[in-house]
């Protein structure tokens, strides 16, 4: 049995075990966390990323790849950047949803108000509005 083949098998087994572990945690968190889809996705991504980061740090440390403080700081900076991106994306999506909802509600209120008004006054409001927005 060549050393290369054995090393390849060991590496493949290690990768499969890590992927299965993170996948199981991801599926469990996605199923168990209740709430909107975006929220569940972000929680799952944060959880999976944190565990992957921990495993990578432990493995790299034991292999001697990460030996200096500056390398740890670089890895942590990347991790914080990714966490910040995920959280920022979630709040961005949430704010966009809120804005969309507010616009729809305002439109509905305006339409209902127009429907209650005198037809002539309603036409005048619509005409003035289209003139100012044009």
């Amino acid at each position, binding site marked *: *049995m060549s050393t290369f083949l*054995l090393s390849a*098998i*060991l590496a*493949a*087994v*290690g990768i*499969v*075990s*890590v*992927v*299965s*572990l993170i*996948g*199981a*945690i991801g*599926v*469990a968190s*996605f*199923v168990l966390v209740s709430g909107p889809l975006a929220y569940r996705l972000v929680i799952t991504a944060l959880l999976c990323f944190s565990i992957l980061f921990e495993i990578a740090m432990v493995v790299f440390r*034991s292999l001697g790849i990460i030996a200096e403080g500056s390398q740890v700081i670089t890895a942590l900076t990347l991790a914080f950047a990714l966490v910040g991106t995920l959280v920022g994306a979630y709040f961005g999506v949430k704010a966009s949803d809120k804005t969309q909802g507010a616009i729809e509600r305002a439109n509905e209120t305006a339409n209902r108000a127009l429907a209650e008004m005198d037809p002539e006054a309603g036409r005048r409001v619509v005409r003035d509005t289209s003139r100012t927005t044009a």
Partner: protein
Amino acid sequence: MAVRLAKWIVFGVVLGLIPLLTNVAKIKILRDPSSFGYPNEQSLTLLQLASYKGELLLLAAGLSAAGVGDLIGSRLSGTPGIVAKYVICGFCLANLMAVCLLYPFVSDLYQRFGRDQIATVTWLSVGLFTAAVLTSGVCVMLAGVQPVAGGQPVAGDEPG
């Protein structure tokens, strides 16, 4: 779901680990080394003793296979989270295949292992066992999600 998971942890995982722990205790307390094994077994840690011959891999294979069987045995169509069920089933099978790939080499070569090889096999075994526990735990959990007669599915224990 929690009761089902607790039963599985106690009777599937913890009780399954007892033979390994008994063997480790035999070696450590009675100072009675195995007939075929690492020459200086007393110098190994508990985790290494429990895993360097591949016993933990066998337990992981059993757990993964049971998890897949539990999920496939439950009703798949018409239940919620069908995609999650297929995904976790895939992870479980991948884990099982990884164990099947590693075990023949470990069982064949463990008598010639040095300290480094024992450490590698230990970490891989622990990783595969942890992955097997998690994947099959999620399988067991999702297998308990059943549709009810009214059409609205619920997550709960199966009757009995």
